[in-house]
């Protein structure tokens, strides 16, 4: 299943990028222009002078050696750039999904248990608004309110320029703690909080809705009634019996949010100048950095595919009905 899709993805990455308008070499040369010899030389060094099929096969062979191309602007391998920026995106997405789960699941559970109450209506309204939110606007609003009016958080970046330390893990939250500089960790948190809340908005809404409907379904099951008849406390019924089964579809939903997070990261990172792969992709598209878009597109697609596979496996692990098939 995965391999044909993988080959298809490489084909898409390869051919779509070839179709981009603009000659990359002329673009690289800029306004000064370029001599014919140098042009031919560069064409040769990038392999643009060979037939397209050969270029694709070379590309595919390169992939298996971990060669995802070279940025035409920075002259660094795409692979290196990806992994130097990826921790920033991972940190942001990870914190966002934690927020989404920590808020979304309890909100969904309580809404289901107190079905029809004021709380239920508020959560469902909030979830629908969150789900309909244009997050790029939501990010701008957050900046106006929290950075402009209240001056609580900085507008952009990952940490204040006052602090500098060599990246150890690439994750600012860990690196700032390791650096022993007082205030660095606080600065990291204050930079992280707005973008992660913005990025968490849609997954939070989806998780809350999904949890509520899964919970409602489970609460109507016979075994819940049995537990009630046995006189178990409501907390025990909901927490021990119902939640476990309700969470099975929710886990899939959380996994499927990875694609949503990647799309959201493109917008969130652009607005908050967050140096991650979302911003990197947008910048590369506008700079027409062929190789970066190609490599980045492929690596992001592979990432999403792998996560979806893991979710499928995880689903079998937590759902005994599927496990024994």
């Amino acid at each position: 299943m995965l391999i044909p899709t993988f080959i298809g993805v490489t084909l898409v990455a390869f051919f779509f990028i070839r179709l981009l308008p603009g000659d990359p070499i002329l673009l690289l040369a800029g306004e000064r222009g370029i001599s014919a010899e140098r042009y031919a030389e560069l064409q040769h060094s990038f392999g643009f002078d060979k037939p397209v099929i050969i270029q694709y096969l070379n590309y595919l062979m390169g992939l298996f050696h971990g060669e995802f191309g070279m940025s035409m602007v920075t002259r660094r391998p795409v692979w290196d750039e990806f992994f130097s920026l990826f921790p920033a995106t991972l940190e942001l997405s990870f914190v966002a999904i934690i927020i989404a789960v920590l808020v979304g699941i309890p909100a969904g559970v309580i809404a289901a248990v107190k079905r029809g109450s004021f709380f239920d209506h508020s959560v469902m309204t909030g979830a629908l608004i969150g789900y309909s939110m244009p997050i790029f606007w939501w990010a701008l609003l957050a900046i106006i309110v929290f950075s402009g009016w209240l001056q609580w958080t900085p507008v952009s970046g990952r940490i204040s320029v006052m602090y500098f330390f060599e990246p150890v893990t690439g994750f600012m939250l860990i690196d700032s703690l390791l650096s022993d500089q007082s205030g660095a960790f606080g600065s990291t948190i204050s930079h992280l909080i707005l973008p992660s809340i913005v990025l968490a908005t849609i997954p939070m809404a989806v998780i809350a809705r999904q949890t509520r409907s899964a919970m409602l379904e489970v609460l109507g099951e016979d075994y819940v009634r049995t537990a009630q008849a046995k006189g178990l406390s409501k907390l025990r019924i909901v927490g021990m019996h119902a939640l476990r089964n309700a969470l099975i579809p929710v886990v899939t939903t959380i996994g499927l949010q990875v694609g949503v997070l990647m799309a959201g990261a493109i917008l969130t990172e652009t607005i908050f100048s967050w140096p991650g792969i979302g911003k990197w992709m947008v910048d590369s598209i506008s700079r027409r950095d062929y190789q970066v878009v190609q490599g980045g597109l492929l690596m992001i697609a592979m990432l999403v595919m792998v996560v979806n596979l893991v979710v499928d496996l995880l689903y079998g692990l937590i759902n005994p009905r599927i496990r024994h098939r």
Partner: protein
Amino acid sequence: MTDNTIETVSRQSTKAVLKEFWFYFSVNRGAVIGLFVFLTLVLIAFFAPYIAPHDANMQYREAFLLPPAWVDGGNSSFLLGTDAVGRDILSRLIMGSRLSLFVGVIVVVIALTGGIVLGLIAGYYGGKVDTTIMRIMDIILAFPSLLLALVLVAVLGPGLVNAMISIAIVLQPHFVRLTRAAVMAEREREYVVAARVAGAGPLRLMFLTILPNCTAPLIVQATLSFSNAILDAAALGFLGMGAQPPTPEWGTMLAEAREFILRAWWVVTFPGVSILITVLAINLIGDGLRDALDPKLKRS
């Protein structure tokens, strides 16, 4: 005579179906509110040139970044204020409603048509045809939708039309999957077999016999895609890859307003509110449709 009777009966049954549908739809109060808001938006879009108080692209040189009328320094002729080059924001929003609804309709029509045709073919014929189509859809789904749309627009060149095509391509696999699943469930039912035995050709079987029985999930998905299309088009506009300035598209307006966010909150706030209200209304309708069309939820 007989034909007339059949026609009358079928018209009555259509009426009954619609009546039943409205009964379940109107139970959901949010959906009715959403429908009302949406119809208002459609009216605004339709009569936009007559409603808008100013020309959307007219730059008033004496009125740069004027705040809304109710704020100190506001001017009652510019109800929601003006932007950085002195254009009336309200008029631009009203004209922008046309674009957003237009984008939604076109994208859904393209994605729905393509999705239904491919899904019917895949589900009806099965085998290699099915595998090929579904594999291509899997490939599209492997990319985060906004990223793929962004790359497609980069290939085709920035602009609203190309943005619509890209979004339609990205949204289409959902329709293919839904149609295929429904067709596979219906394909071996008695009424389909009966029609086939009676000599109906594959086209007739696909489009006239099977398709009408698969419409419920497609309608719900179309509603969701409608709001997604509006959101994605605005996002592309915001990233500079959708409608180009000076088009009064809501996302593009937000992009132009970005540098003024800390000085003039209104240039950022109102386009976003417009997007949110539109998308929210459509999603409310979508929820209502899902509840009304899902037979499992009808507990009568």
